[in-house]
C-alpha cells in the first residue's frame, strides 16, 4: 500500500465523519468544543458561517451527521449534534454586532433570486457582502419559504425563523415579497446579470382514487394544508383523521392534526414501517402523541356519502423480494380494510413545477421535466440562470439547500466576474499541534462514557393544547455540557512522522481500541485482514506510513479511533502528534463573517 498522502485535504476531512457527511461541511467538533467551553456565541457563528440557519437546523435538520458520527461505532448512539447546534442558538445572546451588515460599496452587478427559502437566502448571505445588488422574489408575504410554510410551529417557533431570516434581510437585499415570478423570460429581460432559482418543490402529489373528486372538501394535500395551518387559514380539523404517506411531511401533518381537534389520528403507509422516509425520531415523536402508524396498506378508495367523506378502504400487501433483492408490494389476498375518518391528509410526496419557465429561452429540461443543472456549478444551460435547493434536483432537506446555495453563490460570483465557473476555489486547511506540555493538550481528551442524553419535552397534555407551543425544550446548560463531552474530537488528528519512530510499540500497547499496527506492507485488502483489529469498515481509511527502520510500516485504522491522544502521549519521540484539523470550505470570495 502507498503511504497515505495527508496533504490531500480530503484525507483528514473524511476522518471528521460528521463534517464530511454534512452537505455544508459544518465543522461540528469545533463548535461542540466551543459549546463545552461555554462560548455559545462563537459556536453559533461557526455554524452560521457554514449552515446559515443554526437555530432552524438545530430543530429541523435531517442530521446526516449523526448516523456518520464515530461515537455511534464505539458506543450505542451518536452525539446529539443537531440538538447541540440548537444549544448554541439558544444561549448565544445578542450576536447582531457580529453580523456583516450592509456592504459599504456596491459592485454594480444585479442578481435576481427566485424564492425566499433556504437556498436563495444562502446565496444572498454569501453574495451580499461582496457588493451585489440582490433582489429576492417570493409569492408569500413573509420570507423563509418552506421553513415558514411547511414546518409546524410546535417544532420551529416563528421567532427563530424571524431572527435568522432577519440576519440576512439586514444585509441589504431588496425583498420583493408577495410578488410571484410568472415568467423567467421577462425577468431576464429586466437586465439581471444572473438569476438564481430557489423556488423549491412546491407541488404536493395527489392520489387519483375513486371518490377523490366527490369528497374533495375533506381531502387535503399535505404541504398545502400545512401552509394554510401555518398562515392561520385553517384552525380546525375533523376528529378522525387519516394521514397518507410515510415522510416527514406526513409526520408534521398528523401531529398538527392532533393539535387542531384530531382525536383519532392515524398514519397509514404503503411500505413497511422500517422503510418509511421519515426520520426515526420524527416517527417516535408522532407515536408519543398517540398516533399509530399502520403499514403495508395501499389506499384504494375514498368512501363518501353524497360528497361527505366517511372513510377509506385499503388493500393489505406484503413485501416480496426478487432475485435482485428489489422489493415488490404484493396483495396478500385478505379482504380490504376500512377505516372511518372525517378528513384525509395526502402527504405522499412533492414535485417540482416550473410552469413559469418558458421552454424556448435556451434553458434545457430533461425528460422528467426537470431543468438540466450542472451538479457542481449549479448552472443551467442558460448561462445566466443557476438553480439550487429542491428546485435543482428535487426534494431534499434544508441543509442540502444551504449547501447548494453556497456552491451556486461561488458560481454566480465567478460568472459575474468573468471567471471560469467550473474552476472551483480550493478549501483552506490548517493543521495545528494541540500539545501544550508533556501531558497537556489544548483539547479535552478524556473520553466520557455517558450515554446520549435525551432532550426534555413539554408535557404532552399541554403540548397538544396549543399548536404554537414548542414541544422540544432544548438541553439546559448542564446537560448540554455533558452531551458535548461525548464528542470524540475527531478533528484532532493523529499525525504520524515516520522518521521519528523508533518502533517501541508504546502506541500499540496503549491504544484503547487497537487501531495501530506495525507490520509488513501489503495490498490494502490483505493488509486490512491482519491488523491488530481487522479493519472491516471499508468506508474508513487506513493511515499508512512509509517503511520504517525495520522495513515494516505503521498502519492505523481510522474507523474507531477515539482521538484520545494516548498514542501521542505515550510516544517517546513525538512521532505521534495530535493536530487540530480545520478545513475552511470555500465560499464565494471573502468569508462573510469572523468565527
Amino acid at each position, binding site marked *: 500500500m502507498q503511504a497515505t498522502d495527508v496533504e490531500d485535504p480530503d484525507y483528514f476531512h473524511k476522518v471528521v465523519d460528521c463534517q464530511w457527511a454534512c452537505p455544508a461541511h459544518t465543522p461540528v467538533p469545533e463548535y461542540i468544543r466551543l459549546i463545552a467551553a461555554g462560548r455559545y456565541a462563537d459556536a453559533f457563528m461557526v455554524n452560521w458561517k457554514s449552515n446559515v440557519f443554526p437555530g432552524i437546523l438545530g430543530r429541523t435538520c435531517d442530521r446526516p451527521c449523526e448516523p456518520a458520527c464515530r461515537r455511534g461505532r464505539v458506543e450505542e448512539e451518536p452525539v446529539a449534534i443537531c440538538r447541540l447546534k440548537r444549544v448554541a442558538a439558544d444561549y448565544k445572546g445578542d450576536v447582531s454586532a457580529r453580523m456583516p451588515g450592509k456592504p459599504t460599496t456596491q459592485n454594480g452587478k444585479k442578481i435576481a433570486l427566485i424564492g425566499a427559502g433556504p437556498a436563495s437566502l444562502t446565496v444572498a448571505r454569501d453574495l451580499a457582502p461582496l457588493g451585489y445588488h440582490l433582489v429576492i422574489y417570493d409569492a408569500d408575504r413573509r420570507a423563509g419559504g418552506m421553513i415558514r410554510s411547511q414546518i409546524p410551529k410546535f417544532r420551529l417557533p416563528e421567532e427563530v425563523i424571524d431572527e435568522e431570516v432577519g440576519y440576512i434581510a439586514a444585509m441589504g437585499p431588496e425583498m420583493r415579497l408577495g410578488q410571484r415570478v410568472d415568467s423567467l423570460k421577462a425577468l431576464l429581460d429586466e437586465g439581471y446579470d444572473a438569476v438564481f432559482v430557489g423556488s423549491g418543490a412546491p407541488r404536493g402529489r395527489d392520489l387519483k382514487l375513486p371518490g377523490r373528486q366527490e369528497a374533495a372538501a375533506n381531502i387535503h394535500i399535505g404541504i398545502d394544508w400545512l401552509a394554510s395551518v401555518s398562515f392561520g387559514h385553517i384552525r380546525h380539523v375533523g376528529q378522525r383523521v387519516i394521514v397518507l404517506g410515510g415522510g416527514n411531511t406526513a409526520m408534521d401533518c398528523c401531529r398538527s392534526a392532533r393539535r387542531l381537534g384530531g382525536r383519532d389520528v392515524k398514519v397509514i403507509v404503503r411500505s413497511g414501517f422500517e422503510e418509511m422516509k421519515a426520520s426515526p425520531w420524527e416517527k417516535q415523536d408522532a407515536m408519543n402523541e398517540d398516533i399509530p402508524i399502520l403499514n403495508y396498506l395501499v389506499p384504494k378508495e375514498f368512501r363518501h356519502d353524497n360528497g361527505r367523506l366517511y372513510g377509506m378502504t385499503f388493500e393489505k400487501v406484503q413485501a416480496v423480494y426478487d432475485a435482485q433483492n428489489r422489493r415488490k408490494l404484493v396483495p396478500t389476498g385478505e379482504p380490504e380494510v376500512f377505516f372511518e375518518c372525517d378528513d384525509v391528509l395526502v402527504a405522499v410526496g412533492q414535485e417540482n413545477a416550473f410552469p413559469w419557465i418558458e421552454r424556448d429561452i435556451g434553458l434545457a429540461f430533461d425528460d422528467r421535466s426537470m431543468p438540466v443543472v450542472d451538479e457542481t456549478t449549479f448552472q443551467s444551460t442558460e448561462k445566466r440562470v443557476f438553480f439550487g435547493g429542491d428546485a435543482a434536483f428535487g426534494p431534499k432537506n434544508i441543509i442540502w439547500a444551504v449547501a447548494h446555495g453556497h456552491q451556486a453563490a461561488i458560481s454566480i460570483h465567478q460568472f459575474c466576474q468573468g471567471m471560469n465557473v467550473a474552476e472551483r476555489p480550493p478549501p483552506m486547511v490548517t493543521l495545528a499541534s494541540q500539545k501544550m506540555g508533556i501531558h497537556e493538550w489544548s483539547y479535552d481528551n478524556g473520553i466520557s462514557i455517558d450515554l446520549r442524553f435525551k432532550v426534555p419535552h413539554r408535557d404532552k397534555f399541554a403540548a397538544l393544547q396549543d399548536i404554537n407551543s414548542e414541544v422540544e425544550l432544548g438541553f439546559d446548560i448542564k446537560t448540554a455540557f455533558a452531551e458535548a463531552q461525548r464528542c470524540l474530537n475527531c478533528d484532532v488528528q493523529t499525525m504520524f512522522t515516520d522518521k521519528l519512530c523508533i518502533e517501541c510499540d508504546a502506541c500499540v500497547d*496503549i491504544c484503547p481500541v487497537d487501531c495501530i499496527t506495525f507490520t509488513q506492507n501489503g495490498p490494502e485488502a490483505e493488509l486490512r485482514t491482519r491488523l491488530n483489529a481487522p479493519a472491516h469498515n471499508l468506508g474508513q481509511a487506513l493511515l499508512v506510513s512509509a517503511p520504517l527502520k525495520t522495513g515494516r510500516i505503521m498502519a492505523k485504522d481510522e474507523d474507531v479511533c477515539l482521538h484520545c491522544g494516548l498514542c501521542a502521549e505515550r510516544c517517546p519521540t513525538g512521532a505521534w502528534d495530535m493536530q487540530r484539523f480545520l478545513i475552511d470550505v470555500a465560499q464565494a470570495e471573502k468569508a462573510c463573517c469572523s468565527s
Partner: protein
Amino acid sequence: MTFMAKPKLHHPDLQKNSLGYTRRDYEGTISTLCAGCGHDSISAAIVRACFELELPPHRIAKLSGIGCSSKTPTYFLGASHGFNSVHGRMPSVLTGANLANRDLIYLGVSGDGDSASIGLGQFAHALRRGVNMVYIVENNGVYGLTKGQFSATSDKGAKSKRGAPNNDEPINLVGMALQLGATFVARSFSGDKAQLVPLIEAALKHPGAAFIDCISPCVAFNNHEGSTKSFDYVREHNSAVNYLDFITTKPEITAEYEPGTVQTITQHDGSMLRFRKLDSDYDVNDRIAAMTYMQERQAAGEIVTGLLFIDPNPQDLHLHLKTSAQPLNGLQEDALVPGSAALAKINAGLR
C-alpha cells in the same frame, strides 16, 4: 507520566475468551513509566498471554521487588493478587506464597538491579529450589529510577548516555539460570511481541521454575548509540534460535513447514509446544549445549533469543518437600493439629 485513565471504550469487535473476559479486562491502571518504556510492552505481552491462556485473573499472584520493572505489576492484571516486596526479595516472598498456596499461578516480575545486584542470592536460590513460577527479568542494563547508572547486566564496553564506558563484567542471568537448574529458560526482547507472548504463555504453563530474561530498552537512559540494550542494537544483533508458534493440546500439525524445521515438545500436562527452528542444529532439551551455544554467540557479539532450554519433565519444590496436594492455607485445624495420638505415633516411629 500520564494522568488520564485509559478510556473504557474498546474496539467493537474485541474478542471475549471462554471466561467472558476481553483482553482489556486483564489490564491494570495506566502506566506511569516514561513514554516508550520497554517494560510497558512486556506488561502488554503479559496481558495478552493471560487473556489467550484464558487464566482466571483471581488465580494469579504477581509479585515484584523495587525498581521501574517492579512497578509494572500495577499496570497489568488489575484483578489479580499483588505483592510489592522489599528490594531484591521478591523470590523469597514468592517462594513463601507458593508454599502456602500451591494452587495459584505465580508471576515474579523483577529487573536487572533487583535480581542481578541486591537480589542476586534470592534469584539464585529460588531457581535452584525449583519454585513453580514464572520469573521475568525486565532487563534494561541501567538504573532508570536513579537516572541511568550502569547496572550489573550492562555489557563491558557499553557506553552510558554521556559517553562513559562500562568497565565491569556483566552478569549473564540466562547463563546463571541454566547453571542453577531452571527447567525453562528463555530470552526475548520487549520490541518483539510475536516472540515474547508465546514464550510467556509457555512459561505460565510450565510446572516448574521458568525464567525469562527480557531485554527491555530504557528509552530515557539507555537507548543511545553505544548502548548494547537499545532498540537499534538489539534488533541488529538479535539471533533468535526459534519461534514458538503456539501451545496446543492437539497433536496434528496443520500449518505447512519445511521438514526438520518444526519441533514439538509434549509437556507434563499433555499440552504441546510447537516451534519453528531458525537454527536447525539447536536442541532445546540440552542444557549443556545451550550454555555453550549462548556463550559462543555472546562472544561473537550476538544476543541469543528464543526458548533456550526446557525440561519436559520438571520437578518443583513441592515435590521435593513432599507437601500435601491440598494447599497448606486450605488445611483445616484437624489436619494441622492432629492431636496427641498422632504425635505419639510419630514419636514411636522415631524410637
